[in-house]
């Protein structure tokens, strides 16, 4: 009995030691991946921030209204810092997933391929989001200035409508790109936008008919009168 117990103990110990011997290199590979990820991520961050500084990316962001848009959203960091930090985490996570994959655990068997498959969607969504914010600010600014120069009283309201319209549209595109509740996003977007346009059409057609008529008449009368002198 004691022999059997002894053999069982030894077998279990051997089994565990065998597994440990097999697992340790994988663990070391994961730690190595993490360390390399930290180093490469840090290097990529430094390099990217240097390039952004050389091409005066901050000035570009300020000009396009991206910095002020982020500030309004409570983000006080510079855009190049954010991109640097983001690049660090992308590289680090990339190495971290490779490390997890190196462990060869059944639960994480397809983790790396799944993540790599999804990565293009994430990058596309980020680009769409950035471009959308730039376009929203640019269009909002253009509408605001044009409306002020035309002396339209609701200039700021019009500009905000355009800006938020583009932002909402961008948000919907980002979610669709990420594949998050695709059908719901499309349906919600169609309902909201369709609803707004219909509401505006009804409001102008019924409620604001007289106001629209007066505004048009005022505008046409003023255009006929023109300025009292030429400016050039």
């Amino acid at each position, binding site marked *: 009995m004691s022999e059997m117990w002894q053999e069982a103990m030894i077998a279990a110990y051997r089994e565990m030691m065998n597994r440990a011997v097999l697992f340790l290199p994988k663990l070391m590979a994961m730690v190595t991946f993490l360390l390399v990820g930290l180093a490469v991520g840090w290097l990529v961050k430094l390099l990217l921030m240097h390039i952004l500084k050389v091409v005066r990316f901050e000035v570009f962001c300020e000009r396009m209204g991206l910095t002020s848009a982020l500030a309004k959203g409570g983000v006080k960091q510079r855009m190049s810092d954010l991109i640097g930090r983001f690049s660090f985490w992308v590289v680090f996570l990339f190495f971290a997933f490779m490390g997890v994959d190196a462990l060869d655990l059944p639960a994480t068997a397809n983790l790396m391929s799944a993540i790599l498959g999804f990565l293009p969607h994430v990058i596309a969504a980020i680009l769409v989001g950035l471009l959308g914010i730039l376009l929203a600010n640019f269009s909002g600014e253009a509408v605001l*200035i044009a409306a002020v*120069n035309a002396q339209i009283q609701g200039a700021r309201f019009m500009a905000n409508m355009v800006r938020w319209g583009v932002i909402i549209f961008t948000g919907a595109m980002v979610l669709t790109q990420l594949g998050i509740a695709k059908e719901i996003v499309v349906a919600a977007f169609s309902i909201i936008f369709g609803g707004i346009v219909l509401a505006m059409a009804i409001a102008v057609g019924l409620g604001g008919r007289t106001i629209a008529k007066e505004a048009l008449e005022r505008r046409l009368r003023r255009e006929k009168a023109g300025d009292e002198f030429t*400016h*050039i």
Partner: protein
Amino acid sequence: MEDAVWKAVQEQCPDAHQVDLLIALPSFNHASTIGSVLKAILAGLNASFANASILIVNADVGSQDGTPDIVKQTVGDLVPVAVIQPLGEGSSASPFALNRLSYSGMPGREEAFRSFFVLTQRLQAKACAVIDANMRSVTAEWMSLLVKPVLESGADYVAPVFRRPRYEGSLTNNLIAPLTRSLYGKRVGCQVGGGYGFSPKMASTLFQKKFLWEGEAARFAIDSWLTTVAVAEGFQVWQARLGAKVQDNKAGAADVATSLVQAVGASYHYMEHYQDVWEKPTASSAVPEVGKPMETEVESTPIHVERMMKGFRQGLRDLLPIWEVILAPETLAGVLALGLKDDDDFRFPLALWVQTVYDFAVAYHEKVIHREHLLRSLMPLYLGRTSSVVLETRGGGPEMVQHTVEQGCQTFEAMKPYLVDRWRFQ
């Protein structure tokens, strides 16, 4: 383009290898006016240049009303005449052509001028006069006024000056001319359109300088930069007093904001190119003038400033976040204080206006926001300054307005170090 234009002229006038004078008319559906313009030109040529060899060239950009036929009928056999089509290098498809068109009122005007410059070079003409085909006030004297300074006095560029009511050309008088004077040291009126005189030297220089026609410069109508480039390049600039300016499809009749974008944008644009020229301190000097002295007129209808004031106040309310980016803090503080004044007491101080114009120039250079947005956001401030000038001077005569304009020019000159400092060290 050069060869096509030259070939077209050679086909119509095989004997025209060398001429003394090139008289050029850009046109587009100007059948109603071009006949009388040509009659005045022919009378002027007959009176002042009877012995000179002359070629009249009409660059027509696709008139549908028979303008080229009228040109040929009117000139007949009196003087050799050629009608050409200025073929732009894809310029008609340029998205910027619309802004230029709004400003000049004529498509393909820049290409027409380029064609005239090429022909001046090829024909070895001693002078080239360009007359707008839509002018109703051209007289026979215009030929002598635009051409003689080039032939007899060594002028390279003869710019037009017209008699006009005291507040007319407010943007030119309160911004463009003072800015040009302070930058390049020449007291020029910077009026545009109607008629110009060019020496062969100026014509060939303008044609050869590619930066005038390509890239960002292609956004600006030729009238918005001709005088600026002439003074910046150091050409001998003269001014011809041409009397009244009456024309169809008035240049600058586009909305004020578009005119402002064209005129101010061109000035700011060439500030970047000619930085080495204007950064040097220069005292201004007058340019020679020809023609009878002209009286400034009083406007026939009273000027109402309420609408301009409203535009300024709305800008103050809505465009503040944009101005915060463009203006220096002390300039912005000065502008904000203007919002507290009643309409009757409203005054936009001259020094503050000059500082504003210079701040916008620096912001344009630094590209702090999209350049077209920047220029358009100047509009309410310009309306504020213009209403202030009207309020300050409406009790006085035309001399008072002229005095205010001259004061403006002097202040622009005096405050130039502010611009240079900000431009260099911003």
